[in-house]
């Protein structure tokens, strides 16, 4: 017999009054549709879902209205057919009473189902398919935490599972939702367990149920007997003791194993699922129905008809209270969840969510206001009942005095917040609240620490970069002061540089961005890998952390990419006029703003001067006048400029529209290429001439120089052919290449310039060397003199070439 299974025990525990009979008097109720359904996007642990619908859309019952947003997230479905009334912030079921994003659905009372796609052949499907299907059906753990079921089961794929434990303990007082569910849907439950076992492949399947549900136990036993599953699925009846329904406690009760601190049951080869989840899995796979309703207990003395109801998700509590005959004058405490771990609601309008197992409407008599907190006398009653074997009195001491490190050392984070300690405390100390406060303080401090470390790294990186930049500048400055070339050349170069610098800085920026993007992509990949491993190991905390990081990384990546796209076209922007005009307007704007600020400042000064009757008053007034007049002038010119700009921009718009035609852009590009080719051809010719001239001189010393020139010549020729090829490609006017060639067009020119510059520098250096040589070796004066004159000639040629190149570039 199944009850023969050994049952172990856990430390502590309490026996509060059961109060379970009240809600079991009536059969399972089915309230009518409410006026509206409120569906919070975050009904589960992890990232909130992403809405798929828009305000005004018509949705069918069971239609997906929100999809998962990242791995640790879930789907959401329309609980009935109707119109989407709003997607807005609404009060949600949360102890804080804060608001969160919700989809508001107005039912049309037709209950029209969308097309259902059940998975009747689940046994033949792969597990991954079944898991994906479950994810799309929005199945989450319905016991309390709302952990996405597919995530939990995915972890099971990697480990060899020892036990699959079905949690039917329902240890909290008042709640009978699971009891009712087992009684009403026994067959579905058992089939759901079979599906789970198919997915989990555990060595043993155990159902843990408290002995205060005799009817449910009987039904389950019968069902198992009929299906001949007694061997495969063992029903273990455990004595009634709070909190035996806690995951860790139930595991200890059934297997005598402890889940290591900071780990999950999956780490010791155990998976725990609530009975409600099993039925939801059955509904999804066999019937194709997504998770859109659940069984919830309505109880408490303020209700005249306490009962269990099968309720659509999103139903406002108010609707249910009215359904169960709530006496508003008696109601003093409205609790979602049980009396031990539930949280109070201040707002009747909050909706039922996937994890709502009980609504407890308590009267003042039933749940009296707690007596004032007294001093802790360290009586140790809390310690005797703590199911985690902690020292609650010490934890209180430390959290009270903000000694959180000590509290952590005393295992504060192993506290499951079951409330047993507060229940027995003779001094009415809200111990759980102290612990929750302590935990959140520690978490906050940790996060702040991470953030400050991060800021420090960024700050230091910035400092290093700035220092490097400063050093580079200094080095450049030094390099510039050293050589003393001819002045007019210098000027030319100086005039050329800013023009030349523009595209190259843009190029640099885009290059840098590209590198950044590559790095970001690598990071993203790494994070994603970490995420998948985390998912496999089912570490919910790290999953959500990683999820956030991945999202961040994605964001930065997309940011970088947009940045790149803005930077990249910058160098080929032809419509410079607009820019300059815009810039002018902006400049004007700035000037006006500054002028206005000056006016304000002077006004202030005047006021101050007036206060103390200062002699400078007149002067200040004058200043004010001039400043205001200037501001007015600037304003005027600003408006004028704006008008002009508008005019020109409308004109330009028409031009750009014309230009934007694909053939036009191609034409422009090809024109440019042609110009480039022409320039390159010219360069080739010139170089040839130079070489010829040198050859005609017949001097061997010029061989080095000549070889350099030939090299250049060859290069230029190659370029010409390349450009011609490009042009040839372009002329058939293929649509896409144009932009590419555009972006690349200035590059060869810039390269050329660079090369020429190098050539000039080289020639200069050689010249100076020769000069030095001349000083040192007066006996070879004649020879060297000749060489010098040759070099000078070569340098001149190179320089003229460079200036030509720069000119062409300017033209472009």
């Amino acid at each position, binding site marked *: 017999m199944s009850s023969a299974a050994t049952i172990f025990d856990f430390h502590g525990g309490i026996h509060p009054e059961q109060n379970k009979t009240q809600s079991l008097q009536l059969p399972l109720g089915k309230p009518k549709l409410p006026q509206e359904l409120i569906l919070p996007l975050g009904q589960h642990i992890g990232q909130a879902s992403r809405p798929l619908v828009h305000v005004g859309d018509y949705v069918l019952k069971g239609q997906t209205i929100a999809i998962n947003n990242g791995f640790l997230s879930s789907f959401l479905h329309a609980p009935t057919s109707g119109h989407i009334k709003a997607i807005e912030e609404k009060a949600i079921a949360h102890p804080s009473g804060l608001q969160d994003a919700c989809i508001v659905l107005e039912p049309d009372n037709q209950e029209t189902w969308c097309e259902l796609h059940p998975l009747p052949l689940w046994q033949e499907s792969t597990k991954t398919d079944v898991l994906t299907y479950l994810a799309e059906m929005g199945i989450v753990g319905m016991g309390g935490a709302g952990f996405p079921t597919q995530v939990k089961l995915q972890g099971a794929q990697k480990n060899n599972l020892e036990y699959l434990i079905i949690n039917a303990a329902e240890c909290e007082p008042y709640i009978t939702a699971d009891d009712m569910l087992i009684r009403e849907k026994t067959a579905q439950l058992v089939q759901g367990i079979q599906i789970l076992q198919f997915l989990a492949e555990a060595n043993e399947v155990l159902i843990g149920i408290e002995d205060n549900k005799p009817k449910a136990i009987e039904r389950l036993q019968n069902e198992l007997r009929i299906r001949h599953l007694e061997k495969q699925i063992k029903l273990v009846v455990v004595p009634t003791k709070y909190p035996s329904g806690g995951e860790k406690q139930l595991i200890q009760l059934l297997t005598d194993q402890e889940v290591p601190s900071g780990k999950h049951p999956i780490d010791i080869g155990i998976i725990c699922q609530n009975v409600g989840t099993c039925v939801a899995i059955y509904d999804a796979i066999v019937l194709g129905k997504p998770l859109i309703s659940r069984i919830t207990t309505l109880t408490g003395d303020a209700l005249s008809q306490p009962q269990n109801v099968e309720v659509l998700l999103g139903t406002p509590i108010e609707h249910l209270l009215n359904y169960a005959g709530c006496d508003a004058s008696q109601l003093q405490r409205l609790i979602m969840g049980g009396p031990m771990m539930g949280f109070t609601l201040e707002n009747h309008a909050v909706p039922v969510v996937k994890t709502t197992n009980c609504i407890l409407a308590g009267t003042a008599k039933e749940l009296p206001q707690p007596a004032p907190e007294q001093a802790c006398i360290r009586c140790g009653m809390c310690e005797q009942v703590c199911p985690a074997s902690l020292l609650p009195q010490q934890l209180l001491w430390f959290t009270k005095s903000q000694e959180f490190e000590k509290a952590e050392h005393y295992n504060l984070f192993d506290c499951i917040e079951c409330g047993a300690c507060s229940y027995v405390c003779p001094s009415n100390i809200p111990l759980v609240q102290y612990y929750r406060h302590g935990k*959140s303080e520690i978490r906050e401090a940790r996060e702040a620490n991470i953030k400050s470390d991060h800021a420090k790294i960024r700050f230091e990186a910035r400092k290093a970069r700035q220092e490097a930049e400063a050093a580079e500048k200094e080095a450049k400055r030094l390099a510039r002061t050293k050589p003393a070339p001819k002045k007019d050349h210098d000027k030319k170069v100086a005039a050329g540089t800013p023009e030349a610098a523009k595209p190259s800085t843009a190029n640099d920026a885009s290059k840098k961005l590209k590198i950044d993007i590559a790095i970001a992509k690598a990071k993203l990949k790494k994070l994603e890998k970490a995420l998948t491993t985390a998912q496999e190991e089912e570490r919910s905390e790290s999953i959500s952390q990683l999820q956030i990081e991945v999202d961040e990384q994605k964001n930065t990546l997309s940011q970088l990419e947009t940045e790149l796209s803005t930077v990249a076209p910058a160098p080929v922007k032809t419509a410079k006029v607009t820019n300059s005009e815009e810039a002018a307007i902006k400049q004007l704007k700035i000037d006006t703003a*500054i002028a206005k600020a000056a006016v304000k400042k002077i006004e202030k000064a005047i006021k101050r001067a007036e206060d103390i009757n200062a002699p400078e008053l007149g002067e200040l007034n004058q200043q004010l006048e001039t400043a205001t007049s200037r501001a007015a002038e600037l304003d005027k010119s600003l408006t004028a400029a704006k008008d002009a700009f508008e005019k020109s921009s409308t004109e330009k718009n028409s031009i750009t529209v014309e230009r934007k035609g694909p053939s036009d852009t191609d034409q422009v590009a090809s024109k440019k290429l042609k110009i480039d080719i022409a320039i390159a051809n010219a360069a080739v010719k010139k170089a040839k001439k130079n070489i010829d001239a040198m050859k005609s001189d017949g001097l061997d010393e010029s061989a080095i120089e000549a070889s350099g020139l030939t090299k250049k010549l060859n290069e230029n020729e190659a370029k010409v052919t390349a450009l011609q090829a490009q042009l040839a490609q372009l002329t058939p006017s293929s649509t896409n290449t144009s932009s590419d060639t555009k972006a690349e067009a200035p590059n060869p020119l810039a390269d050329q310039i660079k090369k020429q510059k190098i050539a000039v520098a080289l020639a200069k250096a050689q010249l100076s060397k020769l000069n030095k040589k001349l000083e040192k070796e007066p006996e070879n004066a004649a020879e060297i003199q000749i060489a010098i004159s040759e070099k000078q000639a070569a340098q001149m040629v190179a320089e003229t070439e460079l200036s030509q190149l720069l000119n062409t570039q300017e033209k472009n």
Partner: protein
Amino acid sequence: MTTILIAVGILLLLSLIFGAILGFANVRFHVEGDPIVEQIDAILPQTQCGQCGHPGCRPYAEAIANGEAINHCPPGGQATIQALADLLDVEAIPLDGDHGEETAKRVAVIREDECIGCTKCIQACPVDAILGAAKQMHTVIADECTGCDLCIEPCPVDCIDMVEIGVTAKTWSWDKPVGPMSRPGNLIATDRQPSTEASH
């Protein structure tokens, strides 16, 4: 007389010997760097805001190690002062109002249609949390922003706001209970609330 001389001589000898040992130990067990500065720096909030009058958190950490008061850091607030007091074993003093008030956590937000793209805020940001280029609109990467205020001042058109980070359902937590019959009386030490209390 000789006894006194012998005694003095022995003491002199002893002091020389111990002095030599101490000197040797000082050289032999010399600790590189100044770990206390590191520890102080680790406590500071790293906003790099300069409200303490130093160019960044580390310089202030060095200044604290050299005896400056520990209450010049408004972003860290009372919690940081408490932590510094614990570390340095000095009394926790209230925040010095001259350097600013402790505020709730904030981030800078640029009103983007007013931004003229002057890049002044980008240069001011100590943690490179502002993104943008010359003549392009700038924006703040909220996750990287430390809320240091340093970008407010240089903005020529005042288009940067400091926005408080509100509490969401995910960041909300229970308050600390008030404790048994707490009253303002402070006759004995345990009647006083811990000073970090002020920050909550």
